[in-house]
């Protein structure tokens, strides 16, 4: 079976942060409920988060890492007694792209998620039962506003950087749109300024596959167990969009699981087996309602048409935008749309389309080139022009 976390340079273990623990922060206590963009109010809200490295005295070295659709607060290191490193462990750690010997890195699970932050599967204190569909609809802005409460709690006035890929990248852009004065630099990776009709269409198929499973029970399945069929098919669709034609050819080609056709509807091809395995595994670790809520939040996302930087405002946030050549889920032209929005406003920015055959998954796999770009970009942001070296004249 293929291990997705495997990276090109196997430096994981010798440079890992080591054992980390998830922490929890609760806000919007009774009487001070948080008002969602939809207008609905809810409280209290808990965010699960982890931190790596040390916050410096003037609190100027904090980086907020933002996870993608099914990610969580566990971005780096390992949890006690477990082997799996965090989802961006190859990028966060001592000497890595986000160098924890210099920077203080924070990662929190989004509101609406199911990995320790308050979401549809959390217990409603009023009823003692999970919120299910009583949970307010969320937007990417809600995710960001909730994170802002956490950043306030940590006493950080201005983040050195916000960084993330995919939906994490949308949160990066939303941070700049909502709190430009609190972000020194932004690294949106493999993401978009708005969700396109094709992307909404994929998410709608994902949602329909969950909601058409009778086990979904209009969202009230918590006593009975997850809508496994629907959720696993939803995830299978996702995995197709995360890979590329070429990476699927390289991984599976037309190889058969057994030597001959079954002439039945078993998984004959390796690619079928892979998708089934991925789908079945996902059901064990992710709440179906959270998947519905978060995909909807992504579809609502739209910072095009001048909404990224409010009119008449100048921002001094620096940008590093990265896309991947074979990523057809968030193709490069969407990153270039971000670039165009920044050019119109004279924002200091770098854009690079990295060569990769891994499709959208590339942001988890293409470590070396991302590391070079991110490391130096952060160095410049943190230190200004103290780049050493004699480059002439």
């Amino acid at each position: 079976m293929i291990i997705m976390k495997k990276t090109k340079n196997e430096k994981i273990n010798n440079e890992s942060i080591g054992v980390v623990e998830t922490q929890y922060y609760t806000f919007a206590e009774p009487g001070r409920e948080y008002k969602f963009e939809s207008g609905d109010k809810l409280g209290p809200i808990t965010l699960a988060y982890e931190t790596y490295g040390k916050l410096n005295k003037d609190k100027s070295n904090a980086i907020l890492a933002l996870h993608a659709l099914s990610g969580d607060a566990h971005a780096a290191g390992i949890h006690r007694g477990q082997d799996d490193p965090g989802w961006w462990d190859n990028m966060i750690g001592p000497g890595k792209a986000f160098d924890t010997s210099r920077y203080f890195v924070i990662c929190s699970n989004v509101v609406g998620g199911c990995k320790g932050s308050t979401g549809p599967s959390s217990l409603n204190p009023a009823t003692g039962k999970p919120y299910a569909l009583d949970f307010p609809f969320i937007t990417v802005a809600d995710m960001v506003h909730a994170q802002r409460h956490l950043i306030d709690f940590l006493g950080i006035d201005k983040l050195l950087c916000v960084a993330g890929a995919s939906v994490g990248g949308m949160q990066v852009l939303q941070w700049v749109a909502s709190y430009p004065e609190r972000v020194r630099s932004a690294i949106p990776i493999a993401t978009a300024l708005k969700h396109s009709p094709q992307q909404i269409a994929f998410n709608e198929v994902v949602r329909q596959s969950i909601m058409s499973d009778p086990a979904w029970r209009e969202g009230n399945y918590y006593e009975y167990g997850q809508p496994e069929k629907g959720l696993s098919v939803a995830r299978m669709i996702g995995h197709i969009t995360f890979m590329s034609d070429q990476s699927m050819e390289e991984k599976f080609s037309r190889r058969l699981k057994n030597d001959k056709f079954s002439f039945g509807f078993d998984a004959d091809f390796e690619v079928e087996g892979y998708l089934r395995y991925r789908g079945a595994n996902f059901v064990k670790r992710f709440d179906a309602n959270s998947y519905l809520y978060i995909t909807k939040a992504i579809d609502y996302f739209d910072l095009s048409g001048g909404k990224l930087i409010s009119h008449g405002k100048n921002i001094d946030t620096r940008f590093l935008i990265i896309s991947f050549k074979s990523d057809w889920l968030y193709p490069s032209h969407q990153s270039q749309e971000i670039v165009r929005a920044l050019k119109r406003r004279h924002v200091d920015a770098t854009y690079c389309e990295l060569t990769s055959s891994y499709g959208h998954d590339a942001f988890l796999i293409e470590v070396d080139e991302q590391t070079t770009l991110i490391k130096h970009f952060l160095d410049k942001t943190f230190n200004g022009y103290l780049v050493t070296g004699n480059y002439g004249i």
Partner: protein
Amino acid sequence: MESNSINLDHRIIYSIIEPDARVLDLGCGEGELLYPLVRDKRIRAQGIELNDKAIQECVKKGLSVFQDDIENSLREYPDNSFDYVILNQSMQEVKKVDCVIQETLRIGNKVIVGFPNFAYIKSRLMLFFKGKSPITGSLPYLWFDTPNVRFLSITDFKNFCVEKNIRIVEAHYLGEKELVHLWPNLLAMNAIFVLTKRKNQAT
């Protein structure tokens, strides 16, 4: 790199640009020109470059670069976004030269253009006596392997500026090691012009 081996064209452009200027370098390569300007003159620099390896080198130097080709890269910039737009040794690689020059004049107050002179004496001699496509210090490529798509002389470019109503503010003619003052269209290997819009052309 030793300072005395730095290309003469870079030294001339370096001396033209004032401190704190806003500068866009089209085809900035590894930032060999922008980096010293940022370091010594604190310019606000933006590069445009297609090659990903070159972009990585720029980022290592702390420079900001967009990966794009020159022709697509200019449209979004508002008028007068930069004090200088540099088009050094990249104009001859551009197909729509006229459009690109007009766009650079729109987004930049001044445009610095540097290009190899096709009418340089060595080119003429190669063509005339050997009957071969010229290969010189500034035009080093074989005919089938050249990134250049436009071949022009200093006289061609001056005529172009007259026809397009573009004002030439400064002209520098470069020989192999030093500046050329006599018969530039014959003796200069490279030329650097500083251009602006004519006043009546300003929109």
